């Protein structure tokens, strides 16, 4: 086995451990941030060097090293770096356990990287749990009423969801005799002719349980109900990571698992494609409708995140329905998650700075922010515009890309539901923008932001506009990453 292929993960694990250990010795906690960032940078460097090599399997086919995985790994590393940077401004609330905080962030990142690479149900499960457990802790990190409540809700519901997922895996394993994703496909193909495997509801039931288990991760309706509560109570950087990291990782896993194991039309791909289409319609609609009335901005973004999961699920549905001939479903997922991550990062970075100052997450306290902190307000507005899906932000191209795949695969009805919902979503996104620019400021003082935060703001803004105006590059990368699915 070639361990070189595993270097990024090793570096990250090493960094995490190093951070915990260093925490015991160093006084200046800024060092921890620096080390974490360096570790991420090094890991990213190695990951880049692996880009576009021939796909390989490691650890007995437990993990794959391919463009698809690397694309996500780089994305997670980028997001992690951004989250660490914005956490600096949040640090007064996390003063005590900085080492653990960073280490947990890194472990969560590691888990997500493994999720993107996992090619066996076992490794999928383990990496999923690594991520989840790190997050259970991170969510409760503030130890106040809300934070702990979030954490409790998350872990208990997460436990149930894990059990459901596992039962699905067990059934899949039981009916195919394989935990290897590729093996499952093979087994299904072999038995299609001879036995009535597919006719038995067992495998379908297993598939449904898998959908439910993963649906929990990506907060798809009706498995979404934890998300608003958890998002609201968690420390804001963690909320951010949860909404862009954990969710995106969920999609990475879903793509890999469903496409590798059930990707052929005869292997239920039409069934899960339709299931995702329906879930997507419900998620988009409910997410948007519920977001309208929210008064807490984090909660609003949680619901908006549910809607965005719905949009991404359109591409999953496309993937399921289009079969193996084209990769637009997958590549549009990849593009969308990047655009979504950038927009959410921008929005949350601004929210962190503002809520630090205002000591509140209520939307009404954003009144007049355009006067008090024009740059933050501008970035938040841009982020919201991108989330709405208006040009020239990346969110528009992302939606266009996803919808174009869906329209081509007979999902016009879903596209229409989705585009109409985009219009509804403008209502609550613009409400925040309106309040910031039109409302009366509650105070005179400006909102301070650290250089790190400003860096995040700058990077995300550039990203949003760059991928909104000249998306070719990212689309090409996404297509390269998705190319492994074409067979």
């Amino acid at each position: 086995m070639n361990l070189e292929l595993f270097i990024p993960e090793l570096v990250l694990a090493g960094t995490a451990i190093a951070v915990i250990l260093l925490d015991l010795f160093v006084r200046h906690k800024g060092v921890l941030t620096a080390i974490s960032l360096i570790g991420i940078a090094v890991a990213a460097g190695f990951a880049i060097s692996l880009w576009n090599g021939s796909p390989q399997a490691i650890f007995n086919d437990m993990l794959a090293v391919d463009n698809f995985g690397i694309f996500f790994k780089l994305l997670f590393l980028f997001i992690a770096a951004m989250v660490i940077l914005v956490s600096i401004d949040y640090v007064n609330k996390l003063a005590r356990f900085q080492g653990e905080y960073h280490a947990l962030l890194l472990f969560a990142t590691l888990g997500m990287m493994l999720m993107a690479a996992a090619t066996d149900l076992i490794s999928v499960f383990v990496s999923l749990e690594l991520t989840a457990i790190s997050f259970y802790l991170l969510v409760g990190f503030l130890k106040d009423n809300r934070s702990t409540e979030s954490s409790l809700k998350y872990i208990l519901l997460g436990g149930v969801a894990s059990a459901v997922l596992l039962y699905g895996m067990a059934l899949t394993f039981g009916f195919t005799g394989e935990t290897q994703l590729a093996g499952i496909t093979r087994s299904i193909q072999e038995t299609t002719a001879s036995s009535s495997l597919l006719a038995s509801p067992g495998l379908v039931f297993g598939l449904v349980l898998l959908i439910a288990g993963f649906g929990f991760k990506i907060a798809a309706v009706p498995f979404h109900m934890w998300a608003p509560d958890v998002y609201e109570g968690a420390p804001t950087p963690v909320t951010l990571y949860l909404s862009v990291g954990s969710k995106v990782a969920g999609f990475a896993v879903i793509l890999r698992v469903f496409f590798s194991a059930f990707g052929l039309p005869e292997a239920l791909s039409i069934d899960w494609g339709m299931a995702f289409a329906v879930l997507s319609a419900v998620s988009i609609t409910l997410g948007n409708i519920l977001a309208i009335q929210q008064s807490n901005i984090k909660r609003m973004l949680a619901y908006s995140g549910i809607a965005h999961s719905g949009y991404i699920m359109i591409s999953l549905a496309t993937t399921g329905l289009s079969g193996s001939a084209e990769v637009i479903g997958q590549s549009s997922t990849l593009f969308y998650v990047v655009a979504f991550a950038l927009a959410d990062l921008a929005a949350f970075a601004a929210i962190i700075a503002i809520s630090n100052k205002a000591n509140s997450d209520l939307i009404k306290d954003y009144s007049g922010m355009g006067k008090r902190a024009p740059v933050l307000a501008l970035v938040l507005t841009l982020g919201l515009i991108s989330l709405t899906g208006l040009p020239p932000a990346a969110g528009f191209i992302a939606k266009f890309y996803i919808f174009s795949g869906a329209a081509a695969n007979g999902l016009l009805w879903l596209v229409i539901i989705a585009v109409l919902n985009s219009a509804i979503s403008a209502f609550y996104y613009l409400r925040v923008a309106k309040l910031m620019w039109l409302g009366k400021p509650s105070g005179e003082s400006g909102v301070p932001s650290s250089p790190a935060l400003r860096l995040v703001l700058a990077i995300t803004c550039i990203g949003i506009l760059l991928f909104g105006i000249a998306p070719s590059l990212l689309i090409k990368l996404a297509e390269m990453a998705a190319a492994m699915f074409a067979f």
Partner: protein
Amino acid sequence: MTLGLEHFLILSSVLFAIGLYGALSRRSAVVILMSIEVMLGAVSIAMVAFSRYVVPALLTGQVFTIFIIVVAAAEATVGLAIIIAIYRRRETIDVTKIDLMKW
């Protein structure tokens, strides 16, 4: 009567249902955590049974089960820690009263 796969599966699904019922109905967070453990146990049984009956030559299911056990332990640990943290602040672990955040 010999024990067949279906017996194990019935056992497993009954156990899973019991665990699920417990998780959704009991008020104490600790009991819920235990119920989740029951569900995971149910899955383990199914896993091992499948392994034994479907692919007797391999140990896939067993290996999987070991991972499940490990993860369940980790999860329980973390869960208990969180429950303790909650109890410290609110002096209750009744999940129906932990509803600060809603709507």
